[in-house]
């Protein structure tokens, strides 16, 4: 019942959170690095808006899904580096399964014949 009311913003927000968590699973990154990784890995399709990225990072930090730390980067700059917490890993797992359910469901709706054939 609840899924029916998923609105666009919520979906996007959740998606960004998930993307951040997923990207961080490959290792700690700073904000800029995150946005670059997401862009490259999505084949330059997903461009993360800085105005959404940092509020999202701080929100995830507040929820203790990620942890932040100041580090000195390769070219001697102080940057804030985020890494996944164990709580964040758990969250990522559940979000991924939710996401695959959701995308399967959407795929089913978009392509009914194929999904019937599968069943």
């Amino acid at each position, binding site marked *: 019942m609840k899924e029916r009311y998923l609105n666009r913003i919520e979906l996007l927000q959740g998606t960004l959170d998930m993307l951040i968590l997923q990207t961080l699973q490959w290792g700690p990154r700073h904000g800029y690095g995150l946005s*670059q990784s997401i862009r490259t890995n999505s084949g330059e399709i997903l461009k993360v808006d800085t*105005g959404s990225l940092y509020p999202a990072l701080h929100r995830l930090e507040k929820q203790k899904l990620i942890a932040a730390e100041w580090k000195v980067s390769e*070219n001697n*700059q102080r940057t804030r580096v985020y890494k996944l917490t164990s709580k964040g890993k758990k969250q990522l797992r559940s979000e991924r399964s939710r996401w695959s359910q959701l995308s399967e469901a959407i795929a089913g709706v978009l392509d009914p014949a194929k999904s019937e054939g599968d069943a």
Partner: protein
Amino acid sequence: MRFLFWRRKREEELDEELQSHLRMATQDRVERGETSEQAEQFSRRQIGNVGLIKETTRDIWGWRWLTDVVQDLRFGLRMLRKNPGLSALLILTLAVGVGGTTAMYSVIEAVVLRPLPYVDDTRVMVITGENLKTLNEWGTQSFEILADFRAGGLDLSFSGSAQRVMASETSENYFTVFGVQPVIGRVYTSAEVVAGRERVAVIADALWRTEFSASPEAIGATVHLNEIPYTIIGVMPSRFSFPGKTAVWVPITKGGQSLQLSRSEQVDFPSMMNDRVIGSLRPGISVEAARVEMEGLRQRMERFYAGTNVGVTSRIGVSPVTRILSARYRSELYYLLAAAACVLLIGCVNAAGLLLARGAVRRREMAVRLVLGAGRWRIVRQLLSESFLLAVLSTLIGVGLTWIVVVLIRAYGPADVPRLSEVTVNTNALLFALGIALAAGILAALWPAFVSSTVQLGAAVHPEGPRGAGRLSQRGRRLLTVAEIALAVILAAGAGIALQSLRDTLKIDLNFQPERVLTMRVSPKLPRSAKPAEGVALRRRILDEMQGLPGLIAAGEVANAPFSQDSGGGWFLDIDGKLAAAFAEIEFVEGDYFSAYGLPLLAGRTLKGSDTDGTEHVVVINKTLAGLFGGPSQAIGKQLHVEGPGEVWQIVGVVPDARAIEAYTRPRGQVYFPFTQISPKWTGGDLAILVRASGDPSGLETEIRKRLAHVLNDSPVFQVRTLDAAVLDSVATPRFNSKTLAGFAGVAILLALVGIYGVVAFSVAQRTHEIGVRLALGASPGQILRLVLGEGMKLCVAGIVTGLGIVLAFQKVILSVLFGVKVFDTLTLVIASSALLSATLLACALPALRASRVHPTVALRYE
């Protein structure tokens, strides 16, 4: 504070994080071959509005409202600092009110309201009346348990020297009334009570700790009470100590010899109740119901004993224990609280007035803010946070003041008020006073906000605008000032009357000379089997020891120490064959008692050493009693038959009424018996020594103690004080009350003056322009001076008239509550009013002088 610091750090970090993002983005672009300028421009455009990002991120931190509040408070602090004098006045004025009220309430809470820790005040009742010993035998439906007790002082020793302690003889169910169990050991049984031979005792926690270091070995140990050995069987918990500071409880003896407790000790109980009954109500029975039943019982007793010579109490009272304890002090404490509340009220009025004055000055600021688009709620909120700051700051200082006052009261308060030592700063009262201070601040903050919101914005912002306006707040301020002066007048009148009554009391002719007399109490121990002659010999020996003291004028002995809690009690006298014709207080004396006390003979002779058991029984009476015979000289040679020892006594001398100033009582008849002619059965074991000297008698104490040591065999010499001190001690409570009230009145007047000063000074500041015009048009500085002074005086006179009006209107009420004053002293009122008026003149002089010295050109340009 830590939050602010932490937050600032977060803020800086966010900034750095975004900067590093920007740097890295630019670097990437440069690496891809763009010029650094291009790259930076592009990155900046891509990152978007940094301010907005920060704002959104901050929202995620979720402290937006808090930062707003912090901002408001910071602004409030800045406003307070901008006008330090005014702010200090505001804060102090509120702090004094908060402190005074909280301290007084704390006292009341401890003395009157706080239930005893071991007592269910809804169930444990004291039954008052005379001769209630048989009450239990009559049966009662209202009470589950009725227990007898009798309290007083005795000498207690374990080994070596004795100490004076409070003791109680109680029935075995006494502890059950309170529902207390001993910490260790047991309480006595009914068998032990009835027999009266089992010498067992239950001791208090304090005694257990000091004498036995709280060791269980106390059980079974022997303690000597008035030199009789008792076995300790139990220890009461520390929270239980009733009545007063009882150190030891022993079984009451029914009909047998009692412990001879001295009634001169303070027992936290109204006197005139030698034997008391305490009981716990049955569940569901109201105090009212119990009273009705007791009255019925009393009437039954009356009918039963009609025609016999058994006395039946004329009234019977049922009151909760705590209420009985504080009965004497309750009303006076509440008046003091009312006085403190008046001070708080004045403080609030003051604060409101000063805030209003400032609000008027800031109307333009408010108008500008409104024009610039500030929400009204935002402005009100800001004003509120300023008031809040004021209230909190003054409450903090008020707490400090309360604490000081409480410490002072504990140290210097009258000793006879029960539980005064338990006074602590009361949190509820503090919160209440804080609430009042807050309410005053909020009202004062809302008024200018309200006024500014009704203002025509255009007119208010206009440079000429605010000057003429603000009549509403000005009238408000004046009303407030008049109100606070009126309040101060009422307080001053009250304090004046109280002080006057105290002065009158101290002026009462005591009829004796209390100067240079040392009094002390001793408890000479004689075996119960001792013959009267042995007591006579011991008292003689004590007097003999006094001979040769440096500067000795006279030394005497008396059974009851002067101005001790209870008098010696009274007996009915049969005169001229008429039964019980008079009731007189009795006293037993020996040696040069009358000279030592300073009572001159009016007629006849004093009691002499030659009045002994073998000679005719003689007494000296006082003037009041002699009045029954037609006067001092007529009384000589007449005979009295007294209720106690019976026998006929010949009146040989008359002395003036030695008045106790304490209770403003009318002098009562008094009979002085010679110790030598009366059985120890009637005199009890108490003895006080009076020594009159030619110099300061206090220096004699060590010498007297030394001389008494071997006569008294180490039994204690205690309550050593001069007769002067005893007289003063007896009025300690009214003295303390009057002084406190006077203190409050003084503070009230001071605050009222601050209020007048504030109002006049602000009005002068506001009217600088007008004053300049007047000066420019030819007004002399003298005229300006008069103008400003006139304004202040008008307010003051209005306040005084209002205050006096209220005082006179409630004259009857005020007189009845104020320490029994009967005559309204107009002089006090006149002095108080004129003092207030001249002080106002001083308070107004400063701003008035300032106004008269204004230079017209400066004033006209004044903005």
